[in-house]
């Protein structure tokens, strides 16, 4: 029997949290319009994560862990943004987000609890961002197969300037 993809049922994040994920994803895989490369925002990668996190563990056993991780980590990360830049993650400029994510990715973002697990959280974010960009659109990301059209996978290659 063909495998049945799970049907998304509801969303995980509230408005502000989703805006924060969106901001972080926008700089993890940014669009490069001058090179015709679409980005995580064009692909709706945040929608992928928003749907993924409501699935049961039967879809994938790590999902409950990821739910707990985002619930725990996102508010703390936003506190760090407030501390460093006096504003929420979603209001940071691209340069500020880049500095913020770069520090997080190397475990050197100041002001976070020691046991936060910065590198692990960054790699989870990055993994989900890329999955939301490039996976089959049946999972809720890769809107209109935009990344596949850009890559030329299943489609003729297109530029997205």
């Amino acid at each position, binding site marked *: *029997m*063909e*495998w049945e*993809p799970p049907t998304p049922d509801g969303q995980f994040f509230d408005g502000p949290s989703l805006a924060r994920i969106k901001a972080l994803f926008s700089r993890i895989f940014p669009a490069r319009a001058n090179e015709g490369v679409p980005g995580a925002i064009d692909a709706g990668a945040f929608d992928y994560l928003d749907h993924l996190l409501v699935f049961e563990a039967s*879809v*994938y*056993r790590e999902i409950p862990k990821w739910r707990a991780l985002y619930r725990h980590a996102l508010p703390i990360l936003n506190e760090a943004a407030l501390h460093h830049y006096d504003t929420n993650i979603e209001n940071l400029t691209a340069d500020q987000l880049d500095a913020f994510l770069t520090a997080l990715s190397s475990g050197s973002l100041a002001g976070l609890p020691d046991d936060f697990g910065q590198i692990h959280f960054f790699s989870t974010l990055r993994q989900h961002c890329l*999955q939301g960009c490039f*996976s*089959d659109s049946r999972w809720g990301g890769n809107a209109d197969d935009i990344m596949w059209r850009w890559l030329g996978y299943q489609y003729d290659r297109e530029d997205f300037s």
Partner: protein
Amino acid sequence: MSFDAPDVIIVGGGAGGSTAAYALAKRGFTVTVLDKCQTYQAEDFTPFDELHFASFGALTPSPVTDPDVYVGHSGKPRKVNRWWVGNMVGGASMIWESNLIRFTKEDFQVRSLFDTPPAGSSLQDWPWSYETFEPYFERAEDEWGVSGKAGQTSSQEPFRAGYEYPTPPLAPHPSTQFLQDTFARAGMSPYLGPKGINSMDRDDCPECMFCGFCQGYGCSITDRAGSNSRVLNKAVETGKCELRENHCVTRVDHENGVVKGVYYKTDPDGPEHHMTAPLVIVAVQAIQSAQPYWALPHVSYQGCFRSLVSGSRALEFGPRLCAALGPGWTEDSLSIATHIGQFTAARSLHD
């Protein structure tokens, strides 16, 4: 004839078990294959999906309910995902890449290759030679439908004069010529590898469509060999072999050092059942296959594992080294060390 009391019980319907089942059934033995998993059909592997099948591990046992327990240098047991096993009848042969290279002559004589064996190892030469195995390689290549070409370069293993693979090699990839030239410039003799992937229709299985979802995925059109589309199906067709799915063998039964049968469960929480046969073949992958024999008093586990993990730190764990925590359905974290060593093929691509 009864499949409840067969001539042979085979534990595991994967690459090894199914090949044995077909050979024995053809010779008239009654064979019962007990497999802990269920059969997947080709369409179960569609629609193609990297997240579901690969990233989310839909085709390998869960590290939560069916883990391997790894004890590394810290000595602390850790549950790991057994990516090298498939969670369906056919096991790893359903998700492998099906590179079906023969053992080389040197593989049979690993001890003799060393002037002094590596410290801590107990390397042995096999009691058989490449030549003894050659007719069986040929037979397996026929049964498993291997595509390839004999005698391309001197780095290939020797073939009988006039021997040719059942079907020609797969169409080369655009990068093949580049790789061949580059390796040749480096003084090596690359060749197109033999694969259990159809380069043309054969035995009701079509030719490869190069879908791109190959190793780690199930083949959706059975052109890539898996035990259930190459040998297990034929074993069952003889009428002399029965496959029993969802039969998880827990241990081997023995009396006075002689194996009499097996114990198995059909429900993780249910009772153990018993089945006897004059011959029992355990084929649930190299290291796991040793696990059901633990109950046998006269087997020296240390000895049998040492040669598998020669030179590895796992030796220090003594008798508990290197036993995979099969069969599944357990949540305990037994302090068992697993360390799979590997011989790099003794023969390199060099002449």
